[in-house]
């Protein structure tokens, strides 16, 4: 042995002597390390999104045009729904921090109450995201249309009035129907290129005619240039827009219109946009889901009095850290997917 320590070290300054680095418990420190690594994952994903957006050759979708619907109320409410989702998540983050605060006072009732509120908030957020995804996947009434000159345009405004069934089939009888009732069949017929003079045949053999009207607010916005409309962002209104739109859906060619989104194409913009949307919001949603599950497990621990007996509610604090992190990520997703 080379030598012995000349001074005896006070036991309390050693790690094994009841002193932890940074005066923080092992569990909390490890949670922070995990969160840093997870934050790098999300950072990487969002930066990859930015990278793709910077070199996309066709125009990138605009948040307030893509997300402008509310459940039951329809279109025309840009960003309100995501703002609501953000608010729900912020509130559930607040109830979580209140649960942590109650834990520091050993207030078991308070922890129980605020944990319930947090879990409910989490479920609300997940439900909202399910609706958001469903809406994103199904898409709009009019879709993105390829015009005669090869340019592609998104549609806003109103032109479909209702449908008249001129010959009964075994799914629809003669009469007039609301747009929603036959829209699905109509979209199918358009995709198959089987609409002629605004008339198509349903699977059940009913012959249906679309009644439309020319609305001056009906608008096409060019998103991909063609031979005639070469300027991206150009808007075409009213009668001309109507003419171009109906020309396209009655052209008899397949897939002139794109509805909603999947992993290979979407009506909002480049395919990568849909892919990133599904991956990033999906990965975040998965974090929310696991956060809710962890919250529920800890909630049962609170009910059983596990942490009360232990003398501290640090487990609530650690799950709290994870839950706040989920909120933190959403703040960034909200900005980069919806706002800018």
């Amino acid at each position: 042995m080379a030598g012995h320590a000349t001074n005896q070290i006070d036991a309390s300054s050693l790690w094994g002597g009841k002193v932890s680095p940074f005066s923080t418990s092992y569990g909390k420190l490890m949670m922070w390390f995990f969160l840093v690594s997870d934050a790098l994952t999300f950072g990487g994903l969002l930066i990859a999104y930015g990278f793709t957006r910077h070199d996309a050759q066709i125009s990138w979708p605009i948040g307030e045009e893509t997300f402008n619907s509310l459940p039951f109320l329809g279109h025309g409410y840009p960003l309100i729904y995501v703002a609501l989702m953000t608010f729900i998540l912020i509130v559930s983050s607040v109830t979580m921090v209140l649960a942590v605060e109650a834990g520091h006072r050993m207030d078991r009732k308070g922890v129980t109450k605020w944990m319930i509120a947090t879990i409910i908030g989490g479920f609300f957020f997940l439900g909202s995201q399910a609706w958001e995804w469903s809406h994103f996947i199904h898409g709009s009434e009019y879709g993105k249309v390829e015009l005669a000159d090869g340019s592609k345009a998104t549609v806003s405004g109103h032109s479909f009035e209702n449908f008249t069934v001129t010959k009964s089939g075994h799914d629809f009888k003669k009469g007039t129907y609301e747009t929603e009732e036959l829209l699905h069949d109509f979209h199918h017929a358009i995709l198959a290129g089987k609409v002629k003079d605004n008339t198509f045949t349903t699977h059940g053999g009913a012959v249906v005619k679309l009644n439309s009207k020319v609305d001056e607010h009906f608008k096409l916005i060019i998103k991909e240039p063609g031979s005639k409309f070469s300027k991206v962002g150009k808007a075409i209104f009213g009668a001309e827009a109507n003419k171009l739109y109906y020309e396209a859906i009655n052209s008899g060619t397949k897939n002139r219109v794109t509805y909603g989104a999947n992993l290979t194409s979407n009506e909002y913009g480049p395919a990568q946009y849909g892919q990133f949307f599904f991956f990033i919001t999906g990965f975040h949603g998965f974090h929310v889901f696991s956060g809710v599950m962890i919250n529920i497990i800890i909630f049962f621990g609170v009910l059983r009095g596990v942490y009360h007996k232990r003398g501290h509610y640090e487990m609530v604090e650690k799950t709290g850290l994870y839950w706040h992190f989920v909120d933190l990520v959403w703040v960034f997703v909200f900005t980069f997917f919806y706002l800018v």
Partner: protein
Amino acid sequence: MERDDVIEYSLDTHHDEAHGKKLRKKIWQVTAILTVITAFEVGTGIVFKQSSEYWQVIKWMFICLTLVKAAYIVLVFMHLGDEKKTLKYIILVPYFIFVLYLIFISLWEGKAIDAALKLYGA
């Protein structure tokens, strides 16, 4: 196995009702700030379109407000502001170094690829 380390340091964080009241007030203040910022962002997003001539300013304002929101969440809700300074910077500094570097390198490269695709065709 006895977890003596955990108990010692968790007990440190206990507080009484009087201190709790102060903390709760702070929590609700931060809630109000986060809500107002979000509402302001949405309002601005609706009023100013991306085609607006002020868009560059607004875009950077959104990014700054996002960072403000993030700071409140991390420092107050996650209590990182109350931890030891060393811990705070061990969490924040490496993250910012990596992420800023990644942002710089990726967006720069993205623009270069964009220019190349425009020049030579996709």
